[in-house]
């Protein structure tokens, strides 16, 4: 699997994604500059976490007008796999590639901690290696992570199985206390209708080694590998 990690001015988890892919998973990865005109020959585009443009105005609002974004949209439209993590998720919602928006955490504070996630749909390229009953422990680190979508859209998303992850407690129950930021329906991650673009606030790339506290984040990358393996790596290009 060859990944392209988009680096916006102010991205800061680009290194973490790169490290996980190259050093932990032994997969190919390269950086793509925000002002590049095209994304080149990759199987997966990652929009990493961080504070693109300082998160000024709204998180992701300025980055979504970067020169690379039309190419990302085109890649997505042609079925390419796009994963937005944290700030990357915010950029994807701002760009309209994913539904909804991420607003200020309900408690108004930045929050860095381990959380638990339940995989809600195991039929996507991002989750196909997961077990529906598995509870994943993955950290969050964000100030604007409260997921919101208008009621009609939410209904539509539920019908189309677009909710990928929800915040749960360690036994897998959706509870108020397990919701770290006030997200509607405890939503932690979603995908688009066709399932090839996904975003989540937690950081799977920080949960890839035991010494970091959890390896549960690997499931997302293993899913992608499995999915691509089925189709044949790079077959779509």
């Amino acid at each position: 699997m060859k990944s392209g990690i988009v680096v916006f001015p102010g991205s800061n988890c680009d290194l973490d994604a790169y490290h996980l892919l190259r050093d932990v998973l032994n997969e190919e990865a390269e950086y793509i500059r925000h002002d590049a005109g095209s994304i080149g020959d990759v199987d997966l585009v990652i929009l990493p976490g961080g504070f693109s443009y300082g998160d000024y105005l709204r998180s992701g609002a300025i980055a979504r007008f970067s020169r690379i974004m039309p190419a990302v949209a085109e890649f997505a439209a042609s079925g390419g796999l796009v994963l937005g993590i944290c700030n990357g998720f915010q950029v994807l919602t701002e760009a309209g590639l994913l539904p909804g928006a991420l607003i200020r955490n309900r408690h108004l504070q930045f929050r860095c901690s381990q959380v638990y996630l339940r995989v809600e749909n195991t039929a996507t390229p991002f989750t196909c290696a997961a077990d529906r009953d598995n509870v994943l422990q993955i950290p969050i680190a964000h100030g604007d992570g409260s997921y919101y979508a208008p009621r009609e859209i939410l209904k539509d998303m539920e019908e189309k199985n677009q909710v990928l992850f929800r915040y749960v407690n360690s036994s897998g129950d959706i509870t108020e206390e397990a919701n770290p930021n006030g997200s509607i329906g405890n939503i932690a991650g979603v995908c688009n209708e066709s399932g090839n673009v996904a975003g989540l606030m937690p950081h799977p790339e920080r949960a890839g080694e035991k010494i970091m506290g959890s390896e549960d984040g690997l499931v997302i990358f293993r899913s992608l590998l499995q999915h691509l393996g089925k189709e044949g790596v790079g077959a779509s290009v």
Partner: protein
Amino acid sequence: MLTVKFSGALKGENKLKWLAKVEVTLKKAILDPQGAAVESSLVTMGYDNVQQVRVGKYLELVLDAADRDKAAAQVEEMSKRLLSNPVIEDFSYIIQEAGA
């Protein structure tokens, strides 16, 4: 803590509801990194006739007060004490009738 109670003044019959709109902006001499980022984004988006972008806060609130002057005095005080930090920010406000 000694707190100033305003409710007393409102117990009378002529208590009215006012809508205050408060704008809080960074003082002119102070760096506004958000404004600068928005400005340069607007320029790259093609709006290169835009200058001097400043980003501040906008607050709306409803309060009970016997008359506009009383409402304004309270909004002024709240703006100084809580809604802005006079060290780095200026504020301005308008008061409108919000109905009973």
